[in-house]
């Protein structure tokens, strides 16, 4: 399930995949592309994305999908739940994908941040592979975003340490190595991160300007 290799065929779809119409509702344009590409590689050729959730109910009826995949960060999920109801405006009932015999898939989906709905009488087995593919892509995107955030933090920390070193070199006449050693020693003594000590130096220096 963790595999993100392209074309790993995890969805286990056959030629029937091409006939299924899948509607993707995801506000994140990058992830939307990644998901669509993943579904195409797995043989699901009929993937429709929507840009705006304005008048979602009408859009869903117009598109008439067999499966709906929605990002849990989208408040419009509650609109889809209306289609469980029997009423004049609901033409084709939908149900949330819940596999009582395989609770872990449902849980993994919610944790990854995606939910799946089955429209009409589609069999549950047919959606499981699609959902698993989505879960792995959602998790992969989350990991990438996490790595990106950490790389950004690291870059910020490095910039901060460079500034602090410069301040110490100028104020105390230290070499670059000595300035870094002073930051590191203080950090170790105070059990703080070097970047936090650097931040303190920069702040203090700004105050004393």
């Amino acid at each position, binding site marked *: 399930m963790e595999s993100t290799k392209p074309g790993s065929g995890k969805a286990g779809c056959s030629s029937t995949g091409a006939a299924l119409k899948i509607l993707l509702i995801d506000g994140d344009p990058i992830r939307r592309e990644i998901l669509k590409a993943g579904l195409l590689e797995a043989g699901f050729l009929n993937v429709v994305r929507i840009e705006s959730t*304005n*008048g979602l*109910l009408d859009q869903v009826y117009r598109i008439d999908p067999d499966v709906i995949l929605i990002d*849990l*960060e*989208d*408040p*419009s*999920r*509650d*609109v*889809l*739940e*209306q289609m*469980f*109801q*029997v*009423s*004049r*405006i609901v033409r084709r009932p939908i149900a*949330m994908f*819940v596999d*009582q015999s395989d*609770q872990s898939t*449902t*849980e993994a989906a*919610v*944790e990854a941040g995606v*939910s799946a709905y089955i429209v009409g009488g589609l069999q549950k087995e047919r959606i499981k592979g699609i959902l698993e593919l989505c879960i792995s892509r959602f998790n992969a995107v989350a990991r990438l975003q996490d790595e990106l955030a950490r790389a950004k933090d690291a870059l910020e920390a490095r910039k901060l340490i460079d500034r602090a070193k410069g301040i110490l070199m100028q104020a105390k006449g230290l070499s670059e190595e000595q300035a870094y050693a002073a930051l590191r020693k203080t950090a170790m003594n105070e059990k703080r991160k070097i970047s936090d000590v650097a931040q303190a130096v920069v702040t203090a220096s700004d105050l004393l300007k």
Partner: protein
Amino acid sequence: MKRSRDRLRIGFIPLADAAALIVAVDKGFTAQEGLDVELVREVSWSNVRDKLNIGLFDAAHLIAPVAIASSLGIGHVRVPIVAPFCLGINGNAITVTPALHSALAEAADGDLLDPMVSARALGRVVAARRRRGQDPLTFGMTFPFSTHNYHIRFWMAAGGVDPDEDVRLVVLPPPYMVESLANGHVDGFCVGAPWNSVAVDLGIGVILHFVSEILARASEKLLAVRQSWSEENPDTLLRLVRAHQQAASFIEDTRNRGEVAEILAAPGRIGVAAEVVRRTLDGNLKVTPSGAMRASDRYLLVGRHGAARPDPIQAAWLYAQMVRWGQAPLSPEHLAAATAVLRPDLYDAALGRSECAAHAGEPADGIGAFTGPSFDPADIAGHLSAWSIKRGG
């Protein structure tokens, strides 16, 4: 996934009636009880329900009918939910566009503040639109299993308007309500605070009714936990209730209102102007864009008048609405499962109380509907026979 017993993750939707939960945590009442609570802001009731059901949340700010539907297993998987504390009574309002408000005023045979007059006026406006071949009016509410859905249906049906046949009633996430009113997708909506006030402030909505004018006492949000969790963590549950009771008392002390409004208005919490939150808590609302005010000491009850103590009659009334509108079958088993969601015994156990104090001025049947017979939880079939517009029952 395993957390120690004292570390809790609790989900909420940014609405004014999450006040007791947010204040319990941010004012440190949960910490005083030895609980380390992480609040998680959510965007949909479906998310709150699912994350509570599968255990990603230990507890949640949950709309009462969703808790009941989950216990009954209707609309979704069956996961029994219990509520040891009520986060609020009332708080919803019905807001319409200025255009619809004018049309209602023109069609009214009396004071529009009277919900029977406004409901009859709606019936006339709906009939006139049909004669002219115009599209039916569209109203927004928040969820199929929501107080808002049942409140607006109860009101319009009293005026002879069938909510499934004569108008379009659509689900709209609360953050999209105001936008939908502005761009003409809906002609009115029933939603909780602060969204009615936001529409009025933008000059695009008129508050027609506080729901407290339609039902004097309507249970709104619950502090909900899985029944299994309540059985596995009895001590934690009681501490959680005590922290909430302290928060509710703090909120109801009018001297604290300024501080409470600031806590709730924070970006990670409700995220609107503190002044708007304040109006909600005080029950003193601007109801028209031109600045007319309306005050009610029943607009939103957070703890006062015994609001925090779960009342099974409220669950019975909500279940009766599910039956009325064809969402649930009528059976003694379903009724028992619905009323078992609200747990005054757990509330009493936490606070060392043994009986419910009578509250002067509260409706005798526990509901106080503006029309129809008194509600009797032992005779739901009788309650339903009073209405001609219905789907089931």
